[in-house]
């Protein structure tokens, strides 16, 4: 899993989703600052829990990850900060210059970082593998293996809270009180079900607009 904003790797336990976009904690932090300055952006007020979430992730230690930001590619002038913020490099030489810093982390986040693809000018065999039996009958062992899961299982919640969430999930949102919705939004966020949380948030927001 990589950050869609900066391309940096994301620790499986610290995935942050914003409006369907996955970002790393560092970017979440940056965005929070940005949005407080700019206002009116998609992130502004969009997700009330974000601040709490990101604060929880902000462990006191200093930002060691990319401490040395003075590194610069001698050929094209790209800096480590450029690479960090855009995920882009300027030339082939950059791959050597930034190898030890940002690249290694990103390549590592792809699990096995060895290149296994074809060489230039070679063709790939693209025919579908022939599977025995009818095509509708899926046999799980023949499916390509999904990547290893990288996130911890969510811990079970106490039954009363869970009940509220389940009940609201099934109910017509229009019938739920503001306070229940707010509670449910928090619960959904705790369970990292940000899509659900966003639905509740939208409902709450539209109510405020209607008033």
């Amino acid at each position, binding site marked *: *899993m*990589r950050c*869609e904003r900066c*391309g940096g790797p994301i620790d499986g336990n610290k995935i942050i989703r914003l*409006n*369907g*976009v996955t970002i790393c904690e560092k970017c979440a932090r940056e965005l929070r600052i940005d949005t407080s300055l700019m206002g009116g952006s*998609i992130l502004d007020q*969009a997700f009330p829990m974000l601040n709490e979430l990101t604060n929880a992730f902000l462990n006191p230690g200093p930002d060691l990850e990319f401490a040395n930001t003075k590194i610069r590619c001698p*050929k*094209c*002038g*790209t800096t480590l900060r450029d*690479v960090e913020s855009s*995920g*882009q*490099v*300027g*030339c*082939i030489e950059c*791959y050597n210059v930034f190898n030890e810093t*940002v*690249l290694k982390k*990103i*390549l590592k986040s*792809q*699990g*096995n*970082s*060895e*290149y*296994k*693809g*074809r*060489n*230039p*000018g*070679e*063709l*790939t*065999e*693209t*025919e*579908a*593998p022939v599977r025995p039996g009818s095509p509708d009958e899926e046999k799980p062992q023949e*499916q*390509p293996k*999904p*990547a290893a*899961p990288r*996130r911890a299982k969510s811990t079970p919640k106490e039954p009363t809270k869970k009940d509220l969430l389940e009940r609201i*999930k*099934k109910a017509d949102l229009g019938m739920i009180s503001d306070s229940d919705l707010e509670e449910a939004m928090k619960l959904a966020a705790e369970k990292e*079900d940000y*899509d*659900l949380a*966003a639905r509740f*948030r*939208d409902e709450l*927001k539209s109510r405020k607009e209607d008033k």
Partner: protein
Amino acid sequence: MWFEDHKENSEVILATRVNISRNIKGFSFPVKMSQDEKENVIGMARQVASELDLPFIRTDELDDSAKADLFNKYYADISFMAEDAKTAAILGKKDGVCVQVNYKDHITVESLTAGSDIRSAYRDAEDLAVEFEKRMPIAFSEKRGFLTSDIRNVGTGAQISALIMIPGIMKTTGALSVLSKRLEKFEWNIKPLIQGNDVRINSVYIITNMVTLGVDEKELLDRTESVLNDVTKLERSCRASICKKKSAIVEDQYYKSYGVLRYGRRLELPEALLHINWLMLGADHVKDDEVSLSWEQIHKLVHTVLRRYEEITAKGRKTITVPRERAERVREIVKGDEA
């Protein structure tokens, strides 16, 4: 146009896209190139295009309607065709295949297909990419594979993505998170095509493969096939269950939506999408001889609403004319061949 075809799974997978990025040794990537270097690369690409007998187009020689044509077919973005971009496009022999020169990488081969046929889309892209690889010194390392300007792309340099429309999943509680988790397992990313909190526009997503290292192209295609089949299966079962449980509502909404799209005089984007969602949901459920709307028509509707150069560049007259023109185009499509 390629996206109007009704192909396997295209009622869910609006489009499958393969981008293969290649760079030429000896040049910086476009973001760090001088205008002269860009001219050099354009010259080299033009040479290859002429050897392959393919149309070569400099974007700085295009008028607005030609730009609209490239954009509306998903061959080029607005920034790609910016005035001083020094970019060029090469059109493939097949509809849906093109090459962007000097965009983010020197050469980006793009192949698009309606539906989920990743193998043929990939085949078309790779065949053309190989022609460039044979004729140019390519930036490649044994250890890292093809070197690209975006470090997330290094390796195969192949980015696979799909444009999916999932009104059924969006109307089914919890289904989107099932989908997200499934995609996550395969290291695919999902994000909405249009950012915003309006539920009406929340049915169109882009899903993208994130893995370019550690797997070969064959495995990449197998995984993609699984992902696209999973998405289709989930959306289909959501649509079927909604149509079964809420048959009367779906029918009612289908006809109302048809009416709005067929006769409306002003259509904002969210409103148009809302009604297209209902048409998609009900398309295989509502049987009627009077109201006939083919999947080809629905596909055409979706794309004319989602991707329109004239709208994006409309600027000042946007609020007044765009909804009117949109409604006009939509009416034309829905009307179809009816007498």
